[in-house]
């Protein structure tokens, strides 16, 4: 039987990057920008956040150095894979009016270059699978998402150091990538374990000079997994899906509304949120107009505006919509919760509202 894991030296990371570039991939990888880890185009492994660790808390994200010399010793960054697949803003069609008054509509050809994302996390991939369901596995397939998804190669890195805001172990989505990636790396004290999870990944591995891994290395990997599974936050144990359905008139929604800025940061950093709005940008001459789709949020007024009425004008209603959809009605739509435990909504909420604490508020209540 072929071993599933191989070993490669730290200095071979450049080889992996070179291999991807040679195959025509634009490499997107983690790097430090404006005080956070962000995914951006990677030309050299020198751009990787070597020796950088993140510290996350409700409403706080900061980076520090000096703890280790590892490349991937951080939990996650400002965004997951979402912006690469579900564009924050893109044109869906262009309409034109000719001199004789006739209207015509042009749809831009869905296009994408092959992209390899490096250091995707287990939670990011779990979230992508949910977005795959939404954009690809419904009656209507989104052609823009589809072409980008098809052209995406995923080089995942197993998490070794979760942040204080992470709870992927409790949501069942991490810290290790069980499937869904093309290649998965585990960063050891020296070197990496590498594993292919797809045919494309296997082909890529064949092009690298790899060594067989040792028992000791596999043990080190297992201990990293055990360590990374110990996370400070977790989802409460009660049946969240069922309970939330019965809490629609709870005063809690008003209590939380007093703290919530209804700013939309949560949904924007949430790797599974997919809501959008559409708007038109006409040329000044009035003869042509672009129709755009952009990220929206259930925390905006427009999200629930229908025919002259704003259904959810208050923050209490918007928050309730978000929490009950993400953790309850999501199950009916996609067969699971919409939360993958990445903790971004906790860290990137400007006022530090902690979703696990909000859910814990319902624990022990009578009812259902």
């Amino acid at each position, binding site marked *: 039987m072929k071993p599933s894991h191989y070993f490669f030296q730290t200095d071979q990371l450049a080889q992996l990057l070179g291999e991807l570039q040679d195959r025509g991939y634009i490499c997107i990888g983690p790097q430090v920008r404006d005080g*956070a880890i962000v995914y951006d185009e990677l030309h050299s492994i020198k751009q990787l956040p070597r020796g950088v660790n993140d510290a996350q808390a409700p409403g706080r994200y900061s980076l520090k150095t000096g703890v280790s010399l590892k490349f991937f010793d951080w939990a996650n960054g400002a965004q997951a894979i979402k912006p690469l697949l579900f564009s924050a803003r893109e044109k869906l069609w262009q309409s034109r009016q000719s001199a004789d008054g006739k209207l015509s509509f042009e749809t831009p050809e869905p296009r994408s270059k092959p992209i390899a994302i490096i250091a995707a996390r287990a939670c990011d991939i779990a979230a992508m699978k949910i977005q795959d369901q939404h954009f690809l596995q419904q009656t209507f397939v989104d052609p823009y998402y589809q072409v980008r998804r098809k052209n995406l190669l995923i080089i995942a890195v197993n998490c070794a150091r979760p942040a204080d805001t992470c709870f992927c172990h409790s949501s069942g989505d991490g810290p290790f990538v069980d499937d869904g990636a093309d290649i998965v790396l585990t960063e050891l004290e020296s070197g990496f374990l590498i594993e292919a999870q797809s045919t494309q990944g296997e082909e890529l591995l064949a092009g690298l000079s790899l060594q067989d891994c040792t028992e000791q290395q596999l043990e080190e990997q297992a201990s990293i997994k055990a360590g990374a599974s110990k996370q400070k936050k977790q989802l409460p144990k009660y049946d969240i899906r069922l309970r939330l359905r019965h809490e629609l008139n709870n005063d809690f929604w008003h209590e939380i509304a007093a703290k919530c800025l209804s700013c939309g940061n949560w949904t924007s950093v949430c790797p599974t949120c997919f809501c959008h709005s559409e708007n038109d940008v006409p040329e000044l001459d*009035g003869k042509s107009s672009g129709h755009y789709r952009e990220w929206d949020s259930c925390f905006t*007024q427009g999200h629930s505006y229908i025919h002259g009425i704003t259904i959810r004008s208050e923050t209490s209603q918007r928050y309730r919509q978000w929490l009950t959809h993400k953790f309850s009605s999501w199950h009916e739509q996609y067969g699971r919760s919409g939360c993958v435990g990445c903790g971004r909504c906790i860290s990137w909420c400007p006022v530090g509202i902690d979703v696990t604490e909000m859910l814990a508020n319902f624990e022990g209540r009578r009812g259902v």
Partner: protein
Amino acid sequence: MSKPSVAIHKFSSCDGCQLALLNLGEPLLQLAELVDILHFAEAGPLDENAKVDIAIVEGSVSTLHDIERLKNIRANSGLLMSIGACATSGGLQALRNMADTQQWIADIYASPDVIDSLDKSTPIKDHVNVDLELWGCPVNQRQILMAIRALLFGVMPVDEHDKVCMECKRQQTVCTMVTKNEPCMGPVTRTGCGALCPSVGRDCYGCYGPAENANTQAMANRLQGLGLVDAEVARRFLFINSGADAFHRQGVLSREKK
């Protein structure tokens, strides 16, 4: 068919919002083909009393004479659109609304008796019916063109009232508040600027005025948590748009907190 006519009027302001029109470049020529600009003192055409389809009004009401002029403009105009912080909230000069204006005038001017000023600087909507408002200090070209284009189509422009945060996140701008403890006003401030300040790494200072459903109390609490004392929190709200209801209320509350 005659072209729709437009007049651009100025009240108390720095003229910066008119620059959004003047600096348009090529689109200004295009605009001149679509509409007749009958009054635009800063650009040339002068006809203060012209009857127009669209009046664009910049600046706040600051003198008794302003009120008379404004009523005349309203009577002569089909639609009236106020643009910029001065016209929509009273502007920076509305800071005097919370002070003793006569004392300020006496302190500042060599001959206070020649200064004709109301005690308060007020937005256009306080005096006449306003059909639509463009917020911002200053408003930008994109806003102006989108608004005029919509009016030419015969529809109202989309009211851009979401929080700045939404645009920040679309641009993948890293949050300055979360990473750098900047006292960013983005979560309570109206979008439209393109998240300009956060995109260059600094905090939003609320120059587009309050967003819809702005939770200013939670914002004030957060600013305190970042280390700002009450007077500093108050100044975050009582700045460019101190006359805007949501900012005014919160600013005064923070300022008077003992």
